[in-house]
């Protein structure tokens, strides 16, 4: 473990519930349970994140998902992809991002994906009521996971920010990830 905790909330903040990751990141950035962690918001998972992941002790990705009912969420450990697929573009799936960190930098920590179901991905910068009600539970799940991993590993996950400046800047401000 060379770094601290890295939280990446991603999605499109202008697409209602697809912005779940951004809203969660806003809360987590000010959450004392994650003091010292690096919290990022981005629209997509970019290759540049591979470096940040490779130096973190624990990574949590927070995203919206069409596959889940609104008002529910899941936490899954991300396994490294064995194949990047056939049509890689300029954003990556969580397994591909973990694989890229391994390939380029020789390591990746445990990575967890927190996925929350959506009710709407129409234009709008607010969550739907049902997803907004779920948001605190998503935030708690992230905080509890950080605490539990710290207890298991004995590492202080909030002691050292993984990196001070990341710029997975931009991409596709208006693309849906849910």
């Amino acid at each position, binding site marked *: 473990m060379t770094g601290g905790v890295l939280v990446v909330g991603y999605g499109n903040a202008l697409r209602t519930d697809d912005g779940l990751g951004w809203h969660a990141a806003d809360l987590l950035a000010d959450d004392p349970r994650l003091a010292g962690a690096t919290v*990022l*918001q*981005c*629209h997509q998972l*970019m*290759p*540049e994140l*591979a*470096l940040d992941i490779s130096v973190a002790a624990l990574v949590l990705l927070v995203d919206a998902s069409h596959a889940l009912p609104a008002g529910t969420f899941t936490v899954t450990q991300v396994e490294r*992809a064995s*194949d*990047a*697929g*056939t*049509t*890689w*573009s*300029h954003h*990556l799936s969580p397994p*591909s991002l973990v*694989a*890229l960190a391994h*390939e*380029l*930098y020789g390591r990746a920590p445990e990575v967890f994906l927190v996925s929350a179901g959506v009710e709407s991905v129409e234009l709008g910068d607010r969550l739907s009521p049902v997803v907004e009600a779920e948001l605190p539970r998503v935030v708690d799940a992230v905080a509890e996971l950080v605490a539990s991993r710290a207890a298991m590993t004995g590492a202080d996950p909030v002691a050292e920010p993984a990196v001070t*400046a*990341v*710029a*997975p*800047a*931009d*991409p*596709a*401000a*208006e*693309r*849906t990830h849910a």
Partner: protein
Amino acid sequence: MSSKIVISPVTRIEGHSKITIHLDDQGEVADAQFHVTQFRGFERIVQGRPVHEMPSIMARICGICPVSHLIASAKACDQILAVKPPPTGVDLRRVMNLAQIVQSNALSFFHLSSPDLLFGFDADPAQRNIIGVARSNPQLARDGVGVRRFGQQIIEWLGGKRIHPGWVVPGGVDAPLAAETRDRILSTIPEAIAAIERALAWYKSALVQWEEEAASFGDFRSAFMALVDKDGNVDHYDGLLRVMDADGKLLADRIDPTTYTDYLGEAVEPWTYLKSTYWRTLGYPEGVYRVGPLARVIVAGQLGTRRADMELDEFRRRLGRVPSSSFHYHYARLIDTLYAAERIEELLRGPDILSPRVRSFAGINSNEGIGVSEAPRGTLLHHYKVDDDGIVQWANLVIATGHNNLAMNRSVRQVAKRYVKSAQLTEPMLNRVEAVIRCFDPCLSCSTHAIGEMALHLQLIGPTGAVLDEIKR
């Protein structure tokens, strides 16, 4: 019986598109069209908005190159305010614009195009991606991550925000540069330059194997257009328009960009949302010209930085003064990126870069403004008309991808004629048709100001209009 092939969606580009290839009665390619199938309509959306909101709104056109729209929009607003930004404000805008050039060029070359260049256009698609690059040439992949990150970090450090920074405003920028930020950026420049030079060395060593593709990837005579400074050297932020023909003769020089409508026409076709810009004196569709990195390195006398000028000299020794193949966008893009990194350093070492005077203030002093700059993909024009209260009444955007639309269509046609040999589609055929579009690095979200994901849809269509074959991915 003639037929038509459709590629839809086109992958590893910014946005949604489709390609149709029409076969004649003999089964030969008769025509091909590059359709942009997404639409948003920012020119209409902004009507009724206060002009001071324009930079922030226009930056939302694109998540890849928001800074380009921010710059062009702020410059159009400068004209409406009849205000001259302080020199330091201009230099800081230049730094951010160049950082945008770096990160977007890096995305295009390393992330989108290098898989084709490393593995070849006939390689297994499962290998031809960023993971494949990381396994085969990890240094190239790491350099891609590093160079793009370099540009993105500068944008974030200057703008205080990773996405859609609001730091560039009418009249200049809204905060001076801190010495700590300057020093932090300067500390990252040597490695960025080293990474770009490694990529250039690799590309030049591989160039010879792409002679066949270079001869058919949009290899045709056309004009090239870009901004140049008063000395005729490249200028990504300001300057005058220069247009050079295929023989190196200047079709036009030192054109005030605010008179662009005298020179550039805009045409629309029913089969695409992307406007086609053309050189008026040559008419439509004959007035094809190209913009972007290839145009910048062609029309400029010199670039103006030491390393980039050495590379430019070699580029011209290898390919001539006006290389006609669009394949050479890749090479030009790397030189353009090297220049940008060097120029950022020059600007940051300027004696007044930390000056607190970075913004001028004014009210509405003009009812019209035109802002022009070089975006990663080429010349970008924002043209606004406002009422006396500064409320936007009309807007016209001329985007690099629109300038290149005629050239992209011609390129797709050329590649299709060279590689599409039957009414059944194959992966290498498909990839080459896509790859020629990637040379231009089109940004369809910008050019139609639209929502979209990367996608490719190819259709083969017969003389009766029947779809004979189709690939989607």
